């Protein structure tokens, strides 16, 4: 899911490391290696490590970049304020509710489409694959504008289609109830990468397993349930993690739909949007830093919990 096109990670395709063979050059080899890697080291220190420490420190202050000299240390006040700020809990609720809708929906569609375009019985598989991937390549702001039009209460094609089958569609983007589902629907255009990773997973299932299941009398559903799903559970797990992290980074679509205000009635005030509003229009940067650290803790906790529980349902035998 790439409601935001944010971080990925590695898939289990790391080639086995080779033993370097340049012997007797150890010292110069080390220096050369460090020289080539130095852009990363310098960049890491300048743009990651130091800013991380700084933001931890800033989160304990009332820093305003317009008056950097008037900074005062306020201890854990920002964190205390976070706990009592109704907008923080509200924005977390908005984010989690969205993730609960969008993540299963996107994963489901991506897997369904992957099964479809991976089928031996489909003509023009590459064309379909390209078409299902293509919306990923549309700039997110542009695709959001297209969806805003499609979701328009009276002139949008979604409600026109719904009324053709006798359903009175809601005013999607102006309704506090429906704006969440509308954004989840928009997120479906980001299934491309997930779909490709699912396809790679599906193609990695040895066909002997399907033959064996057939011999045991398994039908299509049973062989999907007992062969395909366990065999692709590692890619499912990978896609799930990426999707969850992405949903906590959700920003652009919410910003464009509400012009950055979180309308209607705060229903699109995602955690990230609230953080942005605190940090930039309002310059409450100490507070925004504290919010960022809370986000780090949430994302880390989520990742750890998922990895801990993954042993129960992710099948690690077989090829991987």
């Amino acid at each position: 899911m790439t409601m935001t096109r944010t971080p990925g990670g590695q898939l289990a395709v790391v080639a086995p490391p080779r033993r370097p063979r340049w012997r007797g050059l150890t010292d110069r080899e080390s220096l050369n290696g460090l020289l080539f890697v130095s852009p990363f080291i310098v960049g890491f220190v300048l743009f990651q490590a130091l800013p991380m420490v700084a933001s931890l420190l800033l989160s304990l202050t009332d820093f305003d970049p317009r008056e950097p000299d008037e900074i005062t240390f306020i201890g854990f006040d920002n964190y205390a304020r976070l706990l009592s700020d109704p907008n923080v809990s509200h924005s977390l609720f908005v984010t989690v509710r969205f993730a609960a809708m969008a993540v299963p929906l996107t994963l489901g569609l991506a897997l369904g489409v992957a099964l479809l375009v991976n089928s031996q019985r489909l003509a023009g598989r590459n064309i379909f694959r390209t078409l299902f991937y293509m919306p990923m390549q549309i700039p997110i702001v542009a695709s959001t504008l297209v969806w805003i039009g499609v979701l328009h209460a009276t002139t949008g094609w979604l409600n026109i289609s719904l009324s053709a089958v006798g359903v009175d569609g809601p005013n999607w983007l102006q309704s506090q109830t429906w704006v969440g589902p509308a954004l989840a629907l928009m997120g479906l255009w980001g299934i491309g990468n997930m779909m490709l990773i699912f396809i790679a997973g599906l193609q990695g299932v040895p066909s002997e397993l399907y033959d064996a299941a057939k011999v045991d009398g398994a039908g299509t559903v049973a062989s999907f349930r007992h062969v395909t799903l366990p065999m692709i559970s590692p890619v499912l797990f990978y896609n799930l993690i990426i999707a969850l992290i992405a949903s906590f980074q959700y920003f652009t679509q919410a910003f464009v739909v509400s012009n950055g205000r979180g309308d209607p009635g705060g229903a699109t005030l995602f955690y990230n949007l609230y953080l942005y509003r605190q940090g930039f229009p309002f310059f409450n940067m100490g507070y925004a830093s504290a919010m960022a650290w809370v986000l780090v803790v949430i994302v880390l906790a989520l990742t750890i919990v998922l990895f801990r529980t993954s042993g129960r349902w992710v099948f690690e035998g077989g090829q991987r």
Partner: protein
Amino acid sequence: MSSVAQASSRPISTTGPLRRQIRRFTAVSGLTMLALVVVSMFLMPLAYMVTTSFKDQSQLTAVGAPLYPAAPAKFKYQGEMLDVYDVPTPDGEVHAWALVQGHREDAFFVDPANVEAGEITWIGRWRTLQQHWSFELRTDNFVNAWNAIEFPRLFFNTFAIAGLSTIGAVLSAICVAYGFSRFRFPGRNGLFLLMLATIILPFQVTLIPQYAIFLQLGWVGTWLPLIVPHFFSNAYNVFLLRQYFLTIPRELDEAAMIDGAGPFRILRSVIVPQARAAIVAVSLFHFFWAWNEFFLPLVYLQSVPDLQPLAVGLAHFNSLYSQEPTLIQAAAIMAMALPVLVFFLAQRAFMRGVVFSGVEK
């Protein structure tokens, strides 16, 4: 991609009895029909976008207007422009006739296809008739959007920011990937893991101190914060390139070494030519990632509209013209044309890159 698909496909018997072939044909056409239905629903918003961008604003809200771009038909008759209506006749047909004169309970029409037949008297209330729409493409939305949003400037800014940051990102990623894949040095694996860990670190946590530093340097309101950090490599690009470099046989390096080439020579004349496909993929990924990037340009270029890239300009445009979907959709088409075109031309490189590294960006 396709080679993988072919390799895994089971051979299909074509010599089987006719019946089996028919069954297979039915299965193939059934599934393909299903896929066509799904993909048309999936891409329906694009059809909305294209048709809307060619419509006149008034068509959107007009009752009885078709979904395709059209205008109410007119017919010039005896020096007057007449409105054309869909007129039902007792024989069950519907004619597109031009209204010459309407009364309460009857009306005079003329058939534009057969003017010589003269005026036709029609019994009924003409006010209940629907206007006849004829297909018509309006291109002025594109012209208006182009001028309103100053597209040339936005394109130039986007190209410059994305291009410069791609140069930095690709050059630095090549160096770092080469360092990680070809040299032994203390702490190499630890550094590599550290680099991968930066992928899951939410960027918000470094955002505010970075902003404060760039503000001190006087870089806020310039392109520098969007370009300079990319010259220090990033994890996705390095990971993808390193994976690829590892597949290049080390014997090639060694042969060059025996010829007296140093590490830079080897990188330039052995590794880079061998890894051209991966470098192209990384460049494309990075360029279009930078093309799409919204958050950081929003933060750093908020107060300088003249320097903003397309994504930020488009969002601003949307807030100004949200009442005119025809203009908005025309602008969206112009903003997506290049990335989509390049994607179709280079789709193999894109999709292989995703699977090769499992990286999404």
